[in-house]
């Protein structure tokens, strides 16, 4: 049917095509990073980190309010999301063999796919509407809800990596199960769980949609948890859609800071996980 040569040719062509696909897939990352450096790096100076936005028409100003806002909101998100997410992950790894575990794993994956804007309007109905005001708190809760399912699944995987022999050794020494789990298993997996948290935090730090109707954004420096607060992605969004060149310039700079933050977190986490896995 096919000649030997034709088959070989098809094989090498398709191998080449997959090389091409990989190259083409990486291209946007390279282009985006290059553009961010090219357009944003020039606008980053001391003022950018120390000053808040200035009124329209004035030159200068910075993103300090947005950077601090992002740190606060993401911190709140961790307070809400990390305990629930990590506990669920431990539950899934230690007791998740049965039907309940299966169901929760499934729900976690479905929750993971719920659009972040839907989480945003949910947080609005629960926190913004009853409180009568937009708040950093609501933004933190919204991001925390996004953290939970991601953390549940990464934590589960990390706890599962702990070799069973460790568990058996602890039980053989007379430890009750809960101490075995907490003191031996979870502590062994702690580095992995922490890096899972970093990856998840990197993801939610860049989220904009859930903050639109919760933290809302703010042109002024604010650390009040029950009032509107700026965040990096929100500020980039506002400035990118605005009609002023000065805003666009700052949007690129803000985007550069945001992506450096996010990529540094995820690369660091990945490096640790990889080292850990090779160890285990």
């Amino acid at each position, binding site marked *: 049917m096919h000649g030997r040569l034709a088959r070989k040719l098809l094989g090498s062509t398709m191998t080449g095509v997959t090389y091409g696909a990989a190259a083409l897939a990486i291209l946007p990352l390279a282009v985006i990073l290059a553009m961010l450096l090219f357009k944003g790096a020039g606008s980053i100076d001391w003022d950018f980190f120390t000053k808040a936005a200035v009124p329209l028409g004035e030159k200068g100003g910075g993103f300090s309010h947005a950077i601090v806002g992002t740190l606060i909101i993401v911190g709140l998100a961790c307070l809400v999301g990390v305990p629930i997410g990590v506990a669920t992950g431990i539950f899934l790894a230690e007791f998740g063999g049965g039907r309940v575990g299966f169901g929760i794993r499934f729900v976690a994956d479905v929750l993971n796919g719920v659009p972040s804007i839907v989480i945003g309007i949910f947080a609005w109905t629960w926190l913004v509407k009853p409180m009568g005001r937009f708040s950093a708190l609501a933004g933190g809760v919204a991001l925390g809800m996004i953290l939970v399912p991601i953390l549940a699944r990464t934590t589960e995987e990390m706890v599962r990596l702990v070799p069973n022999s460790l568990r058996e050794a602890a039980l053989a020494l007379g430890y009750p199960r809960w*101490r075995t789990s907490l003191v031996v298993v979870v502590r062994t997996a702690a580095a992995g769980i922490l890096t899972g948290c970093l990856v998840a935090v990197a993801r939610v730090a860049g989220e904009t949609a859930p903050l639109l109707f919760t933290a809302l954004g703010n042109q002024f420096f604010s650390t009040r948890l029950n009032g509107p607060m700026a965040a990096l992605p929100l500020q980039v969004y506002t400035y990118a859609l605005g009609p002023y060149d000065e805003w666009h310039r700052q949007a690129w700079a803000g985007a550069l800071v945001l992506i450096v933050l996010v990529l540094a977190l995820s690369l660091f986490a990945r490096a640790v996980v990889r080292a850990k896995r090779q160890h285990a």
Partner: protein
Amino acid sequence: MTDLAATALEPEAGPRPTAEERWRALRTVSRGDVIYRSVLTVLALLLPLMLLLIALELVANAWPALAKFGAGFLVHSVWDPVQGQFGALPLIFGTLYSSLVALAIAVPLALGCAIFLTEFAPRWLRNPVGTLIELLAAVPSVIYGLWGIFVLIPLLRDHVWHTARHVLGWLPIFSGVFYGPSVLAAGVILSIMILPYIAAVSREVLLAVPPSQREAGLALGGTRWETVWRVVLPYGRAGIIGAVILGLGRALGETMAVTMVIGNRHEVSASLLQPGYTIAAAIANEFSEAVSDVHLSALFLAGAVLFLITVVVNALARVLVWRVARGSAVGSTAV
């Protein structure tokens, strides 16, 4: 003194426990275990509760619009906040259309990447390239949007469209004048955003295909490509379809980047070059400026539709991926 000495010599006053009682004592779960397990279970049960609450809250807030427009909400295309008329057809159409465009671009590329990473790439190249592709998923949506507005759209408008319209202008999907913000721009951006998800899950699925399958393919005289195409891919078919559907789920719910480049117009148009709108984008744009209660409720109803679609899509994807890579946390840790 004597009493004390007597008790010390006879440590067990009562009858000695039988062997059976000792075994039972070993088997009983300590109180700490019960507490530990209950606390974890309660926290884990918060997840289903969360899903349920989201669903209930969406339906409750969408109820006024649902009662007023009924099923007509899905098929009417007039969206007029001033008159209080709301039909979500353009939103639903735009959501599906932009996502399908994204899939058409992303699926072949992502599959190519997954095959490259599991079958053809030299070992030293696999991890670095895999990481770079996964990093695409770490780029925040708003940055894709920014890049879309200032780089991709000008590129499409000034270079790609001018050459493409001479060749493809006769196709209905390329009809009309191209101003920039469009379903095409949204589809391209979305394809970049969902590619890492599809590639990562497909890669895990292909890795889960047993080596014996490959050995059998090669032993029958197949080339490496033939083995991949006729043996490995069919074996992982369900999982790969799952990966694609997972990518679809991501594309359907993506908000910021799409809002920034799709043009935000309530219109149904077959042309890729025309502006469109998606459910998520409409919520992002109109929610905080809703002019009336029914407007807000209509946005909630649109949100409920989006929620329902993504839940079904993700559940389906999960089932398919699990069929191949059972129980492992495929996909959720990849990104």
